[in-house]
């Protein structure tokens, strides 16, 4: 942590391929980005674009095929099992579905205590120490103390997600992968959880990788957004810039597809042909070309990420110049 400007996490040309009978499935292909301490990087994309695989690979819950993951400048892809275990307390994850990510046979107290015991922060026999820490975590995430001995099935989705957050926070991490933490929740509860996550970030200086398909949520929370399509980052920028000036045809289509919650704002949709294709054996060219209204012969070549403005990159041979062929 010598250099104050060094990013907390840097991902360089990360790849995660899965072998399938039809060929390699390129779930994450050549993804690079960095996140500064205290920032939130929003990762958006539709189902199957590789965003969950990206989050899991960064934590080495899945082994990367290629590339580097630098945490405080240290490449964690080379970490041994023992080093990884120590790292787990610094990097945590909050899962999408609070219904299936909690053990139904563990009480709230047991669920929150488990990581503390596992990491040796509190000794297993130290009942008082454990209880103190568990209650402290429950207070922190706004879970009333009376729920300490209840089971997950007795609680609603919002409260369950608070347990998930308490578990992730129990080890005092610096970095948290949030994998669609609010998509299973109702809107009024979703806002409670989003505000809680914002408060915790400010209070504890947390850094988030926030994975979601919900563009309104990502705009609300992120300091920077990357848009993924079939395993690749197609565009990245800060939220204002991305929403005001989207330059990749996919980003444009994605943004114009959001139903705006106001009858006075009429949607003008950028039409998109067909649906997302399979990420198996995709070849060199642009992965979006088949659905793109601006496709041209150059699209069959490999596309590179180009910077087109301050902190704004786009992976498209037109580099945001979309005036032709309209």
């Amino acid at each position, binding site marked *: 942590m010598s250099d104050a400007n060094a990013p907390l996490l840097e991902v360089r040309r990360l790849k995660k391929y899965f072998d399938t009978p039809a060929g390699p499935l390129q779930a994450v292909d050549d993804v690079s980005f960095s996140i500064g301490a205290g920032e939130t990087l929003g990762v958006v994309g539709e189902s199957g674009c590789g965003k969950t695989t990206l989050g899991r690979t960064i934590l080495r819950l899945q082994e990367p095929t290629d590339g580097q993951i630098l945490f405080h400048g240290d490449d964690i892809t080379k970490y041994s099992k023992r080093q990884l275990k120590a790292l787990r307390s610094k990097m945590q994850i909050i899962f999408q579905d609070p219904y299936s990510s909690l053990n139904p046979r563990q009480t709230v107290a047991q669920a929150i205590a488990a990581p503390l015991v596992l990491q040796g922060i509190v000794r297993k026999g130290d009942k008082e120490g454990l209880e103190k820490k568990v209650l402290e975590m429950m207070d922190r995430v706004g879970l009333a103390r009376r729920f300490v001995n209840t089971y997950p099935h007795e609680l609603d989705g919002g409260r369950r997600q608070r347990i998930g957050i308490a578990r992730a926070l129990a080890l005092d991490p610096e970095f948290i992968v949030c994998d669609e933490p609010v998509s299973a929740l109702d*809107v*009024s509860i979703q806002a409670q959880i989003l505000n809680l996550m*914002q408060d915790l970030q400010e209070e504890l200086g947390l850094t988030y990788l926030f994975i979601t398909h919900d563009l309104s949520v990502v705009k609300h929370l992120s300091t920077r957004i990357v848009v993924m399509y079939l395993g690749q980052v197609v565009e990245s920028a800060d939220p204002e810039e991305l929403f005001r000036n989207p330059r990749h045809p996919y980003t444009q289509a994605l943004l114009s597809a*959001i139903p705006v919650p106001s009858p006075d704002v009429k949607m003008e949709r950028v039409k*998109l042909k067909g649906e997302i294709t399979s990420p198996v054996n995709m070849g060199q060219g642009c992965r979006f070309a088949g659905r793109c209204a601006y496709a041209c012969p150059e699209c069959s070549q490999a596309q590179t990420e180009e910077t087109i403005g301050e902190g704004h990159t786009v992976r498209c041979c037109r580099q945001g110049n979309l005036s032709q062929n309209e």
Partner: protein
Amino acid sequence: MKNLLEIQDLTVRFHTEDGTVNAVNHVDLRLEDGMTLGVVGETGAGKTTLAKSIMRIIPHPPGKIEGGKIIYGDRDLLEMDDTEIRSVRGKEISMIFQDPMSALNPVIPVGEQIAEVISIHENLDKKQAYERACAMLEMVGIPAFRAHEYPHQFSGGMKQRVVIAIALACSPRILIADEPTTALDVTIQAQVLEMMRDLKEKFGTSILMITHDLGVVAQMCQKVAIMYAGEIVESGTVYDIFDRTAHPYTEGLLGAIPKVHLQERRLRPIDGLMPDPMELPAGCAFCERCKYAQERCSAEHPPMVLLEGEHYVRCFRAEQGREEDKA
């Protein structure tokens, strides 16, 4: 405008071993001819139960329609015998379900599944019905040569198109869409919504759209009803609901969603949870979470009050506001 469907004082309860669930409580609702009516509410508000009551597909037991009328044309759907209601289902009123993955039969080709509803309701032989099914597939944007394929060979968005093709196969007057795009990605959702809008124009179908997504409501519906704990708390035109919001719950919902078209630092969540439908409070169902709640709210149940035009709200504040205006 003519009322195509009118629900009057509908009450549906589920009698379970643990107690009685008051799923739908004295709901009044009108669907006008050619309109899209959005019914909005969160999980457990009773939206799906309301929809299933219209189709008369509430599982009984434990569910029971305990009171009210559902008037379609000059008939009460709740009075019809099984044969009569079967001639209405799929022909006059049809329904699309939330999850297209489980709404289709996995072992029957999609073309046959569409043809089934056609051959039940129309006087056509098997071949003619299958031809109509292929035409329906084309209409929802799926090439007819895929009619012999099975559901698993289609993507989520296409499966939902097949479900819509089944629902529209007999040109029903009313389409009930229960969260039709919730399981779909946003670009696919936009495609499906646009298709529904086009088909509605083409066939003059009226739509009852059940959703929790206020964005979908704002873009699709002319009329809106907000549901909370089994009752309608506010209803009116889409402009009434979004621009002249009257009920604290509607206000809460609108404050709780992150808005892409506006810049805000912080969301305003609604504190607390929806009351347990087994133990509904005597007063206003929302009063525990309401920032404007007064003593009266927990003791008395607020009636539905007409504000202006067709904008109704179930809240004492609105009633007071009106009396003050008069004075």
